[in-house]
């Protein structure tokens, strides 16, 4: 599992939505920028349906970018071998003519139907959308930080155990423990060392996956005794009422107790269904049942494609999600343009489709 490295993102030439006061009005909102959400933009775009795409990750690609960017995929038609990241990059290129608006690092929390039949969607950052159709392409759910299975950790979360830090200042004066050996752990070690009262970095081995230059900087801080590096694993938490006072660390020489007032564990991300469960959609074992003609959920106008949906014979494959997106778009067209008749066309020969693709 790869940790988020913001530098990996290069979508600057695709419009990032700007902050607006009222809700953003659009034809379609696509929830999830995994391969299926991205390809849905293409299929919708061919039918003149404009889309905004939201993902909790800080970049496109879903599982392909987050879990296996460098691993080869062999079963995407016409691409004998393609890595997760390459596939993502190619999809981004393919959908560029349709100018999708991306909202990264935001999670869709609320989804309700308005009196006029449209859907109002809200993100955890307060962005609002009004959309005629919604495409749930949420894959295995939102990517969420992995919670170390330490007894009672829930009680401390958000109070003295944090999986991300919004404001560096909020950590000033704390005795901080950071756990992990990847980029997130190292980046936060470097960022928080100047404001912390004390900072201990705990990792299970004296080797780090993080970028070599961060590791070098960290080693320097350790030499200067600004940061303490411990090779070991956290086995227990001490504290009361959500306030951490110490952690127990198992090292090669025994167990040591480290006093601290805040802990930041970085063990990568895992997928949790998350808010999808709260939108009033029928669910079956954490999946959204759909029909195989329109890929519509139990709510008219809300579609579900890719790994998040289920139907008899469903295969969680990228290629299935692509097909689902094509059929979904046909059904979405009936809602977005109720009076327009849809003509079946090929991209090879239709001059109107080619115009949309910017090749004519």
């Amino acid at each position, binding site marked *: *599992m790869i940790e988020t490295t913001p530098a990996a993102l290069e979508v600057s030439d695709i419009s990032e939505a700007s902050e607006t006061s009222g809700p953003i009005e659009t034809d379609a909102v696509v929830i999830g920028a995994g391969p299926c959400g991205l390809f849905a933009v293409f299929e919708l775009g061919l039918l003149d349906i404009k889309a905004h795409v939201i993902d909790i990750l800080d970049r496109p690609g879903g599982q392909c970018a987050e*879990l*296996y960017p460098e*691993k080869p995929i062999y079963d995407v038609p016409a691409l004998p071998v393609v890595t997760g990241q390459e596939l993502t990059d190619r999809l981004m290129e393919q959908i560029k003519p349709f100018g999708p608006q991306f909202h990264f690092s935001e999670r869709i929390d609320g989804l309700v139907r308005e009196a006029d039949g449209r859907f109002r969607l809200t993100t955890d950052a307060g962005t609002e959308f009004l959309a005629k159709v919604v495409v749930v392409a949420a894959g295995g759910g939102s990517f969420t930080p*992995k*919670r*170390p*299975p330490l007894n009672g950790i829930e009680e401390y979360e958000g109070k003295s155990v944090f999986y991300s830090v919004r404001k560096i200042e909020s950590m000033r004066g704390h005795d901080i423990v950071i756990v*992990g*050996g*990847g980029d997130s752990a190292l980046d936060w070690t470097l960022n928080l060392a100047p404001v912390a009262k004390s900072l201990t970095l705990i*990792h*299970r*081995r004296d*080797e780090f*996956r993080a970028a070599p230059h961060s590791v070098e900087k960290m080693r320097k801080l350790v030499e200067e005794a600004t940061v303490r590096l411990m090779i070991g*694993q956290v*086995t227990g938490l001490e504290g009361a009422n959500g306030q951490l006072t110490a952690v127990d660390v198992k090292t090669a020489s025994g167990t040591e107790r480290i006093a601290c007032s805040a802990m930041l564990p970085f*063990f*990568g991300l*895992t997928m949790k269904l998350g808010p999808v469960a709260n939108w009033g959609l029928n669910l079956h074992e954490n999946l959204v049942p759909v029909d195989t003609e329109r890929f519509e959920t139990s709510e008219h106008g809300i579609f579900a494609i890719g790994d998040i949906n289920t139907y008899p014979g469903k295969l969680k494959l990228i290629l299935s999600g692509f097909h689902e997106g094509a059929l979904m778009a046909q059904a979405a067209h009936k809602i977005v343009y109720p009076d327009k008749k849809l003509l079946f066309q090929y991209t090879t020969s239709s001059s109107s489709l080619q115009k949309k693709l910017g090749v004519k």
Partner: protein
Amino acid sequence: MTKITFIQPDGESQTVEAENGLTVMEAAKLNDIAGIEAECGGACACATCHVYVDEAWRDKTGKAADMEEDMLDFAFDVREGSRLCCQIKITDALDGLVVRVPAKQF
């Protein structure tokens, strides 16, 4: 067929027979061994197929490769003998292999 024994944290043990060429993770999933989640399906991308290889077998299974070591950073309570069992290929040499399932997979 090669025999592999999985021992649960409570001591309960199950011995299964598996075909050479499969991975220990696949043998576990085919036989519904509890505690082996294998969320990523064996791509060395999730660390939820963590096991402790019995001491007597560590020479035969060998050590984790670099990519696997990196992924083990995401496992809980990593010890000597920790492996991601999707990265252990079953061969005749592993007939009788004993692995322990950790208390938690994260």
